């Protein structure tokens, strides 16, 4: 066991996977000599050399496109997009090529690759360094989308993603990179994609979130406990596929649910969870699923924290579903 934060865990996990499988290569802007702008690839260049830790030009289309080519030819590339906001120039490669390759080739080819990207707000990055594009990827058949919230999960999920036979978008909540440490086992372990985890047991309502907003969601659950309200907290961890069964079972028992996501509200991924809950178990609901989300504006610089679903906004939504 070692006590590690999330970004240290990711660096160690990449190291372990590169040792385990020589087909694993890393590529991205400043991932080599610099060790990544967030140091998620620290020391890997010195250990594995420039053939396996590749500093790329500033072209996301090239990074993702080259990763598709490497994957088709037998490597296991882990591409880093420096900020999720930069993925847009590489979007076509991810959505039109990587996601469709297995299908378009009649399953002759697949693209076993991972695209890691530091995601989300709360670091005073302004619009171009704070966005949450997960909804776009969830709406793309052929991709898998993972968004962990803890160091422990980062390790298990990243290993599963690297070993998966198809492209995985691995989103990392950058404001949690160094937010806290926890015990991360030294040994090899994986966490299946598509499996949510219950972070708090509770009986009065369910709160569902993922990634960076898990911290605020757990704080809200603590605050509710002091008021005598028992909230179950589910961390989705995987967004495509997401754990529909776990969510429906929990919500059906409690009848009340609050959904938290920091992406802009309209057509947010969390709307999919809300819609599915209503479709499947409307008759068990005591109140409509309430969403707490980012706002329908570009991500602000000045109101960096206010944009994010904070404890107060979550508690207000909880009050609404309780009073409904």
């Amino acid at each position: 066991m070692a006590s590690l934060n999330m970004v240290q865990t990711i660096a160690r996990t990449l190291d372990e996977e590169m040792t385990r499988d020589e087909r694993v290569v890393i590529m991205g802007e400043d991932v080599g000599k610099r060790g990544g702008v967030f140091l998620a690839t620290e020391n890997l260049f010195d250990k594995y050399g420039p053939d396996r830790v590749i500093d790329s030009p500033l072209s996301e289309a090239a990074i993702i496109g080259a990763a598709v080519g490497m994957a088709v030819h037998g490597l296991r590339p882990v591409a880093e997009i420096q900020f999720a906001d930069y993925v847009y120039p590489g979007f076509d490669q991810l959505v039109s090529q990587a996601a469709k390759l297995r299908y378009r080739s009649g399953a002759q080819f697949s693209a076993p690759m991972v695209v890691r990207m530091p995601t989300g707000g709360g670091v005073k990055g302004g619009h171009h360094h704070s966005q949450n594009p997960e909804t776009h990827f969830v709406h793309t058949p052929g991709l898998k989308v993972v968004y962990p919230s803890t160091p422990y999960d980062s390790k298990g999920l990243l290993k599963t993603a690297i070993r998966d036979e198809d492209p995985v978008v691995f989103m990392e909540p950058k404001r949690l990179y160094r937010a806290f440490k926890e015990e991360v086992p030294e040994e090899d372990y994986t966490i299946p994609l598509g499996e949510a985890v219950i972070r708090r047991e509770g009986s009065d309502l369910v709160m569902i979130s993922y990634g960076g907003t898990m911290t605020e969601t757990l704080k809200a659950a603590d605050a509710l406990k002091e008021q005598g309200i028992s909230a179950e907290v589910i961390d989705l961890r995987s967004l495509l596929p997401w754990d529909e069964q776990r969510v429906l079972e929990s919500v059906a028992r409690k009848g009340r649910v609050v959904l938290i996501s920091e992406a802009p509200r309209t057509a947010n991924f969390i709307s999919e969870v809300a819609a599915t809950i209503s479709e499947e178990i409307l008759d068990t609901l005591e109140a409509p699923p309430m969403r707490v989300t980012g706002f329908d504006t570009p991500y602000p610089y000045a109101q960096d924290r206010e944009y994010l679903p904070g404890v107060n906004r979550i508690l207000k939504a909880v009050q609404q579903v309780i009073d409904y």
Partner: protein
Amino acid sequence: MSVKSATMLKTTYREAVREAIRDAMRRDDRVFLMGEDVGKYGGCYAVSLGLLEEFGPERIRDTPLSEAAFVGAGIGAALGGMRPIVEVMTVNFSLLALDQIVNTAATILHMSGGQFNVPLVIRMATGAGRQLAAQHSHSLEGWYAHIPGIKVLAPATLEDARGMLWAAIEDPDPVLIFEHAMLYGQEGELAEDVAAVDIDKAVIRRAGSDVSLITYGGTFYKTMQAAAELAKDGIEAEVIDLRSLRPLDNGTILDSVRRTHRAVIIDEGWRSGSLAAEVSARITEGAFYELDAPVARVCSAEVPMPYAKHLEEAAIPQLPGIVAAAREVLGTHV
């Protein structure tokens, strides 16, 4: 739309879009059209046929095959005082311009502290039905509806195809117009002196009291057919044409569902993370006690669009599926 004259002209959706472009070009010297093959070839879907001859190469501009370049140039032109209409051949190709759209067009007003608007119109074909397979056939309107800073329109009728463009050009901010590829051949009549239509409101295309069928763009006519089919059994379906996908017209949607107590959303986008999910979530939030059944969605199968005709047909919403979904919510009581 205000109809000022009784003179009706037979036309098509394609001609209605062309006439809208021609009209805008005549009205305002700052308007120009730019895109791949829009000039000499007349547009991939023949929308701009004849416009090069009429307006010349300065205003009908053939571009290189670089969506990032010509959408970016459109943003620059808009900032510089022009009123560009940029045509992206299909929505799938717009992915190559996504950074320009999401990180530039949609954000300049915000990032300049309100100093610079981007009065840019981007038109693109969308949707399946022509056996163009997994890289030319998707419906990504729902994606764009997730992006703050832009407006998203989906004209389904001839009247909207003709009337929305001018309203979009007059808008001070970026507007994306999605023209479903299967609609271009749609025939109908339009008044000779049509005016601009509003681009903020959904429209009830068919009134009914039993169930609200909510749709837009390529699935609009299929939904109207489904309503006609249901009427044979005495079921009165209301059909809402969303028209504007961002912003969504909550008022029209919720008023309808509060009357009918049941809703089906028909959306050619993939189901997960769809615009239909957003509409569904809003209905349940806003009309929870009025609902007699869960809101249903009819969306595309979650696969890259198949090439084979029978598979393509099976992958997207069709009449029997819409009718069946409506019957199912009508048979449910909560």
